[in-house]
């Protein structure tokens, strides 16, 4: 039975990619709060993004050389210490980890506060591994999360 802590058990890299528009309006562009939407001014390349892009990478070949399964989801609850129940309808990526590796770009809605990574093995006796992240950390940092 695999009950290793997340820190010790897996290499998982999550990279934040920049939101589509990161510049700000100059003060000279900002007037009083308009009463209607028609009074708003925005840059011509501002696309009103409501999600941000994330690169999801799993690299566990050093300890799970065969086939496993990973998913990144946003709706979950901790049922007991380290045990989670996940609403798979909230997943943004689901798929096999082949030869220990998976990498996909995904979009995460802005209002999502936290995400969970689940790593499964096709063995009924192996407990799923779970890793929880706050999206605020993912959105504002450009740090690769490396979990070993």
């Amino acid at each position, binding site marked *: 039975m695999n009950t290793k802590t997340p820190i010790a058990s897996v290499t998982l890299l999550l990279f934040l990619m920049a*939101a*589509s*528009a*990161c*510049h*700000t*309006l100059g003060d000279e562009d*900002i007037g009083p*709060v*308009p*009463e*209607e*939407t*028609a009074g*708003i*001014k*925005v*840059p*011509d*390349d*501002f*696309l*009103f*993004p*409501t*999600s941000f*892009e994330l690169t999801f990478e799993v690299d566990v070949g050093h300890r799970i050389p065969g*086939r496993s*399964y990973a*998913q990144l*989801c*946003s709706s979950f609850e901790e049922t007991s210490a380290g045990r989670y129940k996940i609403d*798979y*309808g*909230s*997943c*943004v*990526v*689901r*798929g*096999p980890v*082949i030869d220990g590796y*998976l990498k*996909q*770009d*995904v*979009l995460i*809605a*802005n*209002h999502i506060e936290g995400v969970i990574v689940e790593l*499964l093995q*096709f*063995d*009924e006796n192996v407990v*799923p591994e779970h890793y929880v992240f706050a999206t605020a950390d993912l959105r504002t940092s450009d740090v690769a999360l490396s979990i070993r």
Partner: protein
Amino acid sequence: MGLAVPALRTLTMIRILFPCIALMLSTQSALAAPFTECPAKAFLVQDTTARLYGVNLATGLTGEIAGDLGTTGKVNAVGFNFHDRYIYGWGYEWRTLVRFGEDFQLEQLPVSGLPDVDFFVGDVSLVDNIYYVYRKGVANGLYAVDLEPSSPAYLQAARVVDGATLNLNIFDLAFHPTESNAYSVNNNGFLYRIDAASGIATNLGDVGEAGTFGAVYFDADGWLYISRNSDGNIFRIDVDSAQPFAELFAFGPASGNNDGARCAIAPLVDPGEAIDFGDAPDSYGTLLANNGARHAIVSPALRLGSLLDGENDGVEPPLADDDDGIVFSTTLEVDRQALISVTSSGPGLVSGWVDFDQNGVFDPREQIISDRAVVAGDTSVVYDIPYWAQSGATWARFRLTTTAGVQPKGGVGDGEVEDYQVSITPTDVITTYYPSALGWTTLAYEDKWPGMGDFDMNDLVLRYRTATYHRGSQVLGTDIAGEIAAIGAGFRNGFAVALPGLLRAQLDSPSVQLSVNGVTRDSPIDTGQSAAVLVVTNDVWEEVEREPGCSFLRTEVGCVAEIESSFLLSIPFSNPLDAGQMPAPPFDPFIFATPGFDHGGFFSSPPGRGMEIHLKNMAPTANADQSYFGVADDASNPGMGLYYQTEDGLAWALEIATAWNHPYEGGDLLGAYPLFFDYVQSVATSSLDWYVANNATLESTYQ
């Protein structure tokens, strides 16, 4: 001989006359009250000291009704007499006819004209008020006992045929609800129709099941049910079929020294009775008439998950969903293993099927779990997807019960059945979803382009999501699902999706499919241009019904119609794309003017496909008339890649990554979502969740 209304031949007439007959008979006996109704349950008498049980033929659920019938002997050859609502039978203790009513105490009825033997085969005709008993052997035979109290021949038996002429190894018989014929199945599995008037038996063929069928019943629809003593299996037979066969219908009680009786005009299930049925399309066996999967609800209920509802019959989708006991922990890939988690309320056996070949039935080779023992809580189960499974949407069924050997169809006395629509992907496919597998993003359009409009952003509101299928560094295809959430437009608009950068030739055109409300439509591919463009509808108003008293759909206070139109676009590619070629979701969803309809004063004639409205800075398709750019409030500049925006950078279309509550008709976006200003002022660095319900002005947004 018999009832005063011998012309009774139809069930309808029987049902109409039942109360009258009951009233006539109500003064004839003061010994024991008859049953007050024609019960749906079957009665089973068994044991050497007779005990009475009730059997629900739909589920096999059995319970003792009376442990003491007032005899120390057996009772057999029982039959429910529709005419007086007593159950008649043969009492071994006194070797005579007996009957009982709702007090379940036997009353002896001396009969003349019968041989000095015991009978274990008998029933009461529904057409004539006559009890028939049978015993093989030349000295015996088939006898008719008149049960009509006003008849001169009351309780006199007459032999219809001798037991050498009618020589059958049968252990019960049952009268058809509308015929004067009785039916039974012999120990070798041959179905016989017995003409009660002549005693002539006709062999109707081998039904495929042999054994001692000690209890035989009919229901109001003319189905014959036979219960096998050795294993309790209840089989159903269509006696009118040219090739009748015994279909396993439910798991009842194994028994001996038994006989069955039932009011044959009763429906199989009482109207108020609650049984758990499946919810898949009926081709999988869902409705009772099709021997749909069903479980008796007992207390405490053995169930999958926490929800369990009771119905009187199965319900085909769409439906209110109580299926929460199976979690598909992984997707289903052809020729690979998959995982599910089963949540059970207690110890039981789980079986499961997936329609891998998508032929609309659960075949024996499609059983993925067979009588897997589970306990209370969650159990992980690994199963195999066969190499021959077909990619695409299909159905799965799971059954939890304490009975071993259940099949995809049929009844059982406890537990629950749950049906799920599932999707099978090709081998080694990773699926990415936007905004999530079952979540929605929202597309909100203003349609007065090139005029600015009122920014209530509800002229068309669509729920929308995508699923994209990757294998390695390639993309195999994508699915787009959507729902029409609101229409606040007087103009007529169509809806389409372009896949930026892709050509029509890159689509696997014959396999591209559009279904609306589950019904497949003509190919959605826009053949009028070389780009990959898919038209969902030319007119969204054609997809919905306007609620009475409402000018629009779900944009006005008090107009609360349910969402009724959904679509699914399945878009496989002819050859896998390099991942870099694949556009990001939500791709390029856009609206266009419905051809032939006026679209406001900026157009001298109906603009049709020439008028498109895309998300900001998404380029139009080749169908768009670019001469409209720069007209009125539009400040598009194709040379700079700027499209569908005003001079101030505002858009005619927004994509909002949740199931968004749009503003009411005529309400302004900023009034409904005050944080929108901070969001745009900061250029999406603060108030990032301006669009969630908690940040909305409740009175301004459609809930």
